[in-house]
């Protein structure tokens, strides 16, 4: 592992301690019941995890992207679903803190960093997935209010969260016509669809968010009109690292479980770890996760230093780490034989949870689009 500073080691140890004690023993139950545990999110907020890389002015922890990656990696060893949900909250909180005017920041950020309020990120629409800039939800200024019309789909935390960071169109003209807004859960004209029946991330709700003449104060616009798409993409650079870190932690948990299992399971008169095929598989899994981790930390460090190739590295890390993590988790399932297919052993949950990391916050194909585009720009 990269040599960490003393503080980074402490931070990572603390996150791991919380994950092992407060999250991991409950992960299977949350998956079954389809519940986010608000009390755990509150406890995480008290520890400073509500705004990890948000500035300290309004209660953020003011840490780096690398610190955040270390934290999400460890939290996800306890429960992928809660860790990833918290990562989206962190991304939305950071966007408000970074781009909203001071009054709006002062109103929302202190309660968001404390996880008194939970935020969702609303970009995807039924007709605008990978091509997010083609979004159609509109926001029209009427007096001192914006009136929103349209629908968002696949919104993590829809109906659960208190605050929705919404990308909507204030003007025609593709990406440049998009603005960002904060919509409170109780805004008139806001409603939520039914919870989607999903493969993984079952502890958290995913649903449509509908805007029918939804009225919000004009002061709830984040930054200037027309800058919204830029904000949304800036959020995603860090968001992708978090999603990758969560995948890595989940895969590590799967490997830990498999490593313990193969030492116990006896076949042909010996523990299955005695077979060299098992040892080679474990060695590959360990190596692949180490390589993924190295790329993730490198990308996070580049984003912290705002290097010109940071966006490319974030996309490369998101693609490589999430693909590798899914592969390793699937290998961990294989090492469990038939038991891996059973809920009790929890590896199948990890495989299910990790699948979406290859799809959301930009599919892994879109990551390749970004990497190739940056290469062609000369940022090699």
């Amino acid at each position, binding site marked *: 592992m990269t040599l960490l500073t*003393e503080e980074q080691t*402490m931070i990572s140890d603390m996150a791991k301690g*919380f994950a092992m004690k407060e999250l991991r023993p409950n992960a299977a139950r949350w998956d079954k019941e389809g519940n986010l545990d608000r009390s755990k999110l509150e406890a995480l907020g008290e*520890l400073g*995890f509500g705004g990890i890389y948000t500035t300290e002015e309004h209660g953020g*922890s003011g840490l780096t992207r690398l610190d955040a990656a270390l934290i999400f990696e460890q939290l996800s060893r306890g429960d992928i679903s809660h860790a990833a949900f918290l990562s989206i909250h962190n991304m939305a909180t950071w966007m408000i803190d970074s781009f909203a005017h001071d009054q709006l920041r002062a109103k929302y950020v202190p309660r968001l960093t404390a996880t008194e309020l939970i935020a969702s990120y609303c970009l995807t629409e039924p007709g605008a997935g990978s091509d997010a800039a083609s979004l159609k939800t509109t926001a029209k200024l009427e007096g001192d209010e914006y009136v929103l019309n349209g629908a968002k789909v696949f919104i993590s935390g829809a109906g659960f969260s208190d605050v929705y960071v919404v990308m909507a169109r204030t003007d025609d003209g593709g990406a440049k016509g998009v603005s960002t807004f904060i919509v409170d859960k109780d805004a008139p004209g806001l409603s939520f669809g039914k919870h989607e029946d999903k493969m993984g991330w079952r502890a958290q709700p995913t649903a449509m968010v509908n805007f029918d003449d939804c009225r919000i104060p004009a002061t709830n616009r984040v930054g200037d009109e027309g800058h919204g798409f830029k904000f949304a993409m800036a959020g995603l650079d860090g968001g992708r690292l978090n999603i990758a870190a969560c995948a890595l932690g989940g895969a590590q948990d799967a490997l830990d479980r498999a490593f313990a299992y193969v030492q116990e399971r006896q076949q042909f008169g010996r523990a299955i770890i005695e077979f060299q095929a098992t040892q080679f598989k474990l060695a590959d899994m360990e190596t692949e996760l180490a390589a993924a981790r190295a790329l993730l930390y490198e990308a996070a460090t580049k984003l912290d230093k705002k290097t010109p190739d940071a966006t490319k590295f974030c996309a490369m890390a998101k693609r490589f780490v999430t693909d590798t993590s899914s592969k390793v988790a699937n290998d961990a399932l294989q090492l469990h034989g038939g038991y891996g297919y059973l809920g009790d052993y929890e590896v199948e949950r990890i495989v299910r949870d990790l699948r979406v990391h290859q799809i959301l916050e930009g599919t892994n194909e879109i990551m390749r689009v970004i990497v190739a585009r940056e290469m062609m720009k000369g940022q090699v």
Partner: protein
Amino acid sequence: MKVLVPVKRVIDYNVKVRVKSDQSGVDLANVKMSMNPFDEISVEEAVRLKEKGAVEEIVVVSIGPQQAQETLRTALAMGADRGILIKTDDNVEPLAVAKILEKVIGEESPELVILGKQAIDDDSNQTGQMLAALLDWPQGTFASEVILEDGKINVTREIDGGLQTLSLQTPAIVTTDLRLNEPRYASLPNIMKAKKKPIDEKSPGDYGVDTAARLSVVKVTEPPVREAGEKVEDVSELVTKLKAKGAI
């Protein structure tokens, strides 16, 4: 009131301990180390007393290698105010630890010293008691509750057969048991603040204490591997088997 909390860096409680092949001790190379869990409980108790307003300053002290500084930082992140690192690469036995602490106490004049009842590496369970004897201070060991009241320290102790409550005059020594409290996680802001809290560096020589070993370890061995059990169908089969083995 000022409280002193000694903390020890030990092998992490999650680590599967391996004995060195020459039986001279356990293998510490590449092994995760952490604060002794009983000492975490001591730090937590001191921080709670401070939060209640009964304590003004918490000083943590560790005797060990340079890396024991990390253990002190953890205590500072939990809420202690400053640290003293007494640097040595030797294995310091409980009596020598108690003698060094006696000198530290002479300089710092705390009214309360909270120690873990034992460290999970050697399980000696001696330092607190030896320290109380050296100082001729009252001691409340194996505390499951500590209450400060009218200049007295009321300590509920876990003893065979139940609980005993002692009332100690200050200054006093308290050693902590597992059920005293549940240590907090240090928050991210407190971890960052801990970086700025002072840690003094000293050596055992500064206190004029000879830490040379008085005991020699003959050998360290792994506990015998637990043998597989035998399953029985019912009680009568169990009784028959036990009789056959001469157990009853």
